[in-house]
């Protein structure tokens, strides 16, 4: 069926269903907030910094040493998440996690080609995250001489539990915003769907278009005019 939709009609459709367009995003936002606050368990993130530093010779740090270190950074990122390190971490910390779970909790980043590796662990409790990330740092520092026969990893900063730890996730504000936008999109889609599915006659124009018959009169809803009755 060929249908042409003008901008005005689109606007009209949205205007008719404005309640839908307001209600659904707000409900979605509310749902998002409730889920964030009550359903999702808060996660805490703690990070430790590792410095990859080729001690080099007595001549001091050469350009070469720096480049070697930078190249190693990529390798170390992988090594930290390898079973060899993480299995030790699980064993040492008597952790209840499987290897893959732990691997998912750990993320290693390296910013701007620096020699510093940022190891981040996300866990249910801040203390746990701190303990795990510090254990990883220690095990990694201890293992590296065995693995690569160079002792060039230094723990730059350890993770601390901190006072009043605030959860890293869920990000309630972000979730609310996402829920609102998704809700709005859904509402607009629903408004058009309803309009498309609504095959009822609406106005004089509809009748003239469909039946090609004259409209003798238009009677509005009676209840709506009832108040006028009392005054007469």
């Amino acid at each position, binding site marked *: 069926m060929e249908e042409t939709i003008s901008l005005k009609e689109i606007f009209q459709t949205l205007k008719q269903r404005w309640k839908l367009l307001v209600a659904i995003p707000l409900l979605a936002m509310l749902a998002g907030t409730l889920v964030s606050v009550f359903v999702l368990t808060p996660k805490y993130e703690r990070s430790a910094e590792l410095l990859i530093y080729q001690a080099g010779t007595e001549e001091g740090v050469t350009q070469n040493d720096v480049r070697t270190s930078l190249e190693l950074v990529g390798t170390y990122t992988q090594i930290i998440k390898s079973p060899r390190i993480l299995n030790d971490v699980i064993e040492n910390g008597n952790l209840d996690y499987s290897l893959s779970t732990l691997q998912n909790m750990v993320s290693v980043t390296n910013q701007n080609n620096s020699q510093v590796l940022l190891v981040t662990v996300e866990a249910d409790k801040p203390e746990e995250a701190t303990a795990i990330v510090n254990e990883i740092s220690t095990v990694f520092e201890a293992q590296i001489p065995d693995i690569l026969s160079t002792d060039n990893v230094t723990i730059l900063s350890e993770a601390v539990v901190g006072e009043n730890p605030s959860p890293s996730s869920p990000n309630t504000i972000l979730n609310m915003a996402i829920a609102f936008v998704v809700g709005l999109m859904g509402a607009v889609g629903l408004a058009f769907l309803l309009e498309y599915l609504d*095959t009822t006659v609406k106005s004089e124009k509809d009748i003239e278009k469909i039946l090609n018959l004259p409209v003798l009169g*238009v009677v509005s809803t009676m209840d709506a005019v009832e108040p006028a*009755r009392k005054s007469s």
Partner: protein
Amino acid sequence: MARSTRTKKGQGQKKRQLIADVNKHSPITEQYRNIRTNIEYSAIDTDIHSLLITSAGPGEGKSTTASNLAVVMGQNGQRVLLIDADMRKPTAHYTFSLMNTHGLTNVLTRQQKLVDVAQETSIENVSLLTCGPVPPNPAELLNSKMMEIVIKEACENFDMVIIDTPPVMAVADAQILSSKVDGTIIVTSSGKTDRDQLEQTKGNLVKAKANILGVVLNNKPIDQNTYYYYQ
């Protein structure tokens, strides 16, 4: 007597308003007058003495339109007879608070004469022929030769005969009657009448050789800006 009809109305029937009588100056009554005028103008070559009101589906405002049209026509000085030919679900006697012991069925089965059964209503110039006892075979009754005679007789005694019928999509009654009257009006309900059904309704009526005068659009949500400005 009146009490029993009232209680019945209160129980099952949705309150049907004779707004054209209750509030003569409301915009709705104005619209019914408008419809009356348009009907008068739609008859170019022939005078319209009998009108049939129908719709595609149930509950779209046939009976309301029929009775209010009867009232505004009566106000105009025409002697009007409203016939409740909706033998499946007669309602006109509730609207006018009249008895339905004798009616159209009695006339069609030749038990009584039209002039005896038609009742005066509380509204000037408006008479009502109620449905009467609900018959088992409405379509046959309405299709009979007698129905034509009744309409003819009514047209002789009254200036305007308005016939309220069942919906077209449900039963054939309206189609049958539509060929026996001067003009047919289709009532539609905004936001309720389905487009396809409306098209089919028109098709059925055209097939029955009805003279469709036009359409009344009911229940249109009022636009605050368009009404009241004249009051």
